[in-house]
């Protein structure tokens, strides 16, 4: 028998038939499918019993309670804390991604010192000794006031420790990162005489008139606001959104009114005009609990008739009238402002105009209204003696000019610092501490901020992450992350009740990091006697427990403390002005320059468009850089590969010869970048929208090099009233690449 081609083929066919009749192919297919689910790089959560630790998230200043799930000593999930007054069980996407900040590759694992442009690890004691020596040297030269500190917040024990250190050391230069908080605090102070924070009871209002505030884009307290907006809707309330771009908030509102960017304050005054003209304001409040109404009324009636406002804002008179009537006739109308997520302070006149609307309808310190929340007063450290050098240092003017005759109202003017430093021969800041902030990324005109940081002889960053500011520093003394440390959270921004949260360690610190509070106390102990004496605590933990006293047990037990019944002081006691009334006008307000829309920087003939930033919950844009979970969730109308898309109205694009998806060059007075065009009907003609939160140079491969940083293209426009950054955009041009 000879094996020929035919018999071979026959064998093969038989083999194929037999294989098909055997379990081999089916079983193999199944196994390979399972094998493909088990790539070695796929993370598999730890197995074992779960434990939960209640804590407070500090990734922004929303004050959300979190419940951190652990298996053994591994954090496996971050959830919202059930029953928490701010976020009741919910959490935002940045909060969920917090683990990636803890375990991610961008941590600073050891204290570091820059030598000839290269980072070297340094021992903690050496780092502290070196800084202490420099501090002493500056004091000996009577230059204590040249030490400054930039902090993400000015409330709570850590910012207070930093502030106290500067005070006893002899420097007035404590600075907080700017935000709408600056203007809201000022508006409350000027009209109500209250040093407090605004709380917005959005959920119990029945009409929200929002002048560009992104309730769904991270404004004030993102989770609280988005839940409150749902309750508003469930209760039958409505919301009108006024902004030049169809944001998520605008899309989810009952009405979206596109306004010429930067003229929101004029519209508020126009609405006030109609309300006064038609007598729709609440007389019980205006007549009995306010003063200065007549003066203010004259300004509004003379200066802001419908035609003028209509021309300024681009909104027709009928619509303004309708808005005014809807607002004034609602039972609990609430007007809010501060664009997008509220990162840029904006113009004080805008805030005053919008605040007056709330006063006109008498919706202050009431459920569903704007509530003045007093600053927490649990930090009452004993006064101690300030030595002569320090007293002398404190007499010096602040480097940023805040509080000086030119800028009487502002408490902090960080936006002015780069200019001051860069313009001087010898930097007026010789040493700078930076805690919980990333100004080299999140302040406008990043280039000038970077230059200033390079010019300051010693910059000490307390960042847990290698961010842009840390990269410019001379030393990094890495703080524990929020999942590894204790800290009190004295602010839940925009939340209408007094509140304190406790951040607590859920795991032991992973690296050789140290609590910034401990470092400050140690530095103080290295200093002269009187400074050391002002810091009597052994360490931060002792300081925190002693400061909180009885609150400590509540915070440890519950994770937070809240005055749940609070809805603002009664009108008879609410106002701490000279007249004990709400002041529509007074000496301070009259002294302010009149309302004028803030113009965008740049020459219109050269830059025919205006570039405005927009915020999204899918990106973090302040101190924290977005972890990979967030970047992965970005829609492809914002980022494609490493290229950012800018929103352009089709009509505008047509005149410039640009089409969807095309590469273009975006130029502003501050710089020029390649971008991709995204044609979007939801943005006004003549306006270009760029997302905030991209264009990092730090934070490693998951974030760095993706897109463009809005702040690299923008500049600060000094508010003539306060000196704060009033910019809302910058002139720009788009050209074919």
């Amino acid at each position: 028998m000879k094996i020929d081609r035919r018999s071979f083929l026959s064998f093969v066919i038989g083999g194929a038939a037999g294989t098909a009749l055997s379990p081999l192919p089916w079983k193999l297919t199944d196994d390979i499918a399972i094998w493909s689910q088990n790539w070695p790089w796929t993370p598999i959560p730890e197995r074992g019993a779960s434990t939960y630790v209640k804590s407070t998230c500090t990734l922004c200043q929303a004050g959300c309670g979190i419940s951190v799930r652990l298996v053994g000593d591994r954090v496996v999930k971050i959830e919202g804390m059930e029953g928490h007054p701010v976020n009741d069980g919910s959490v935002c996407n940045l909060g969920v991604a917090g683990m990636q900040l803890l375990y991610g590759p961008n941590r600073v694992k050891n204290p570091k010192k820059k030598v000839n442009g290269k980072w070297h690890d340094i021992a903690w004691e050496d780092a502290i000794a070196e800084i202490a020596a420099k501090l002493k040297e500056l004091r000996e030269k009577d230059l204590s006031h040249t030490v400054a500190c930039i902090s993400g917040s000015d409330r709570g024990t850590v910012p207070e420790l930093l502030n106290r250190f500067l005070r006893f050391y002899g420097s007035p230069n404590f600075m907080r990162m700017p935000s709408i908080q600056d203007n809201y605090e000022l508006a409350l102070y000027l009209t109500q005489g209250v040093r407090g924070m605004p709380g917005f009871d959005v959920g119990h209002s029945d009409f929200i008139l929002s002048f560009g505030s992104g309730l769904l884009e991270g404004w004030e307290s993102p989770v609280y606001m988005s839940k409150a907006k749902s309750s508003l809707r469930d209760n039958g309330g409505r919301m009108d959104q006024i902004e030049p771009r169809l944001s998520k908030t605008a899309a989810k509102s009952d009405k979206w009114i596109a306004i010429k960017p930067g003229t929101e304050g004029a519209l508020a005054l126009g609405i006030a005009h109609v309300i006064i003209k038609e007598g729709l304001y609440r007389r019980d409040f205006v007549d009995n609990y306010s003063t200065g109404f007549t003066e203010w009324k004259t300004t509004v009636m003379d200066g802001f008739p419908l035609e003028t406002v209509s021309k300024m804002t681009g909104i027709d008179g009928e619509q303004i009238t309708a808005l005014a009537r809807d607002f004034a006739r609602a039972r609990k109308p609430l007007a809010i402002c501060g664009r997008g997520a509220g990162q840029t302070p904006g113009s004080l006149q805008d805030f005053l105009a919008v605040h007056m609307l709330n006063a006109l309808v008498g919706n202050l310190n009431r459920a569903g209204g704007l509530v003045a929340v007093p600053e927490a007063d649990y930090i009452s450290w004993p006064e101690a003696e300030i030595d002569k050098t320090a007293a002398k240092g404190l007499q010096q003017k602040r480097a940023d000019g805040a509080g000086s005759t030119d800028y009487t109202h502002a408490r902090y003017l960080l936006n002015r610092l780069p200019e001051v430093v860069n313009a001087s021969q010898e930097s007026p800041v010789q040493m700078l501490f930076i805690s919980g902030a990333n100004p080299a990324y999140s302040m406008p005109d990043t280039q000038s901020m970077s230059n200033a940081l390079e010019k300051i002889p010693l910059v000490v960053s307390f960042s847990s992450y290698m961010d842009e500011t840390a990269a410019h520093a001379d030393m990094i003394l890495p703080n524990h992350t929020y999942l590894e440390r204790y800290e009190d959270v004295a602010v839940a921004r925009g939340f209408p009740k007094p509140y304190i949260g406790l951040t607590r360690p859920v795991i032991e610190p992973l690296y050789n990091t140290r609590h910034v509070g401990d470092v400050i106390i140690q530095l103080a102990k290295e200093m002269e006697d009187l400074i050391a004496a002002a810091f009597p605590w052994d360490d931060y933990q002792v300081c925190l427990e002693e400061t909180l006293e009885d609150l400590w047990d509540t915070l440890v037990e519950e994770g937070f403390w809240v005055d749940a019944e609070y809805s603002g002081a009664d009108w008879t006691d609410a106002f701490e002005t000279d007249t004990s009334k709400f002041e529509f006008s007074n000496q301070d307000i009259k002294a302010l320059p009149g309302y004028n829309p803030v113009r965008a920087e740049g020459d219109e003939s050269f830059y025919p468009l205006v570039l405005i930033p927009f915020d999204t919950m899918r990106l973090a844009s302040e101190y924290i850089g977005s972890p990979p979970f967030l970047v992965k969730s970005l829609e492809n109308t914002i980022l494609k590969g490493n290229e950012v898309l800018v929103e352009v109205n089709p009509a505008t694009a047509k005149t410039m010869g640009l089409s969807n998806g095309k590469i273009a060059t975006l130029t502003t007075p501050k710089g020029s970048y390649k971008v991709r065009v995204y044609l979007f009907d939801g943005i006004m003609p003549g306006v270009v929208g760029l997302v905030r939160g991209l264009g990092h140079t730090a934070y490693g491969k998951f974030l760095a090099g993706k897109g463009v940083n809005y702040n690299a293209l923008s500049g600060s426009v000094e508010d003539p009233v306060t000196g704060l950054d009033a910019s809302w955009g910058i002139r720009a041009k788009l050209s074919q690449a």
Partner: protein
Amino acid sequence: MSTEDKANDVSADAQDPESNTFAPGPITPEKGDGAGGPIILFFILGLAASMVLGWVIFPKLLYSQKRQPIEFNHALHNELVDEGCESCHFFREDGTYSGVPTLAQCIDCHEEVNGEDPEEEKFVSQYVAKGREVPWLVYSRQPDCVFFSHAAHVKMANMACVTCHGPIGESESLKVYQKNRISGYSRDIWGENIAGIKRNSWDRMKMDDCAECHSRNNVNQGSVQTHRGGCFVCHH
């Protein structure tokens, strides 16, 4: 030459009797050295060989044989405890299932050697004394993308452990763990029978087996929240 011409050409050929190779005539089947028999034979050979490969050799190659680190006698322990399986395989306070016991449970009785079994001595000296967890090989381990709640089945549906795990509580020794060389999971998931035939409810633990029981008992197949397809109830 036009198409028409070609067509004419062909028809001309066809009409030529000499060029017709398919002339009618008696057909003689090929015999002797013909391949009919061997072809079938080779077909059968191929079929048989591949069947042997698929049914016998393949399963042997697919699985590696592993012994458990400690020989454990379920039957013996079962007699000594009060609450049956749940004495050691218990539910945690939060409702999650503890699965295979850890040292923390064993140590209550086995902090020191109690009996004369060399396996117990090995357990105490190598694991308890050193505080090292025993790397038990889990026969019923499912891939990570499968979410299974013991509480829903045992506490709420009152199912017996035996239904899925078989009478393992009566066994006196732990069987050989057959690890799938490709997927890495135990043979018990696919089942001992390579054809996937099962006699008992605990013979297999594939998704079809879950589905079979769920549809037999009219268990809600969709998501409780959305009432739509329930893929993500069990898969993630």
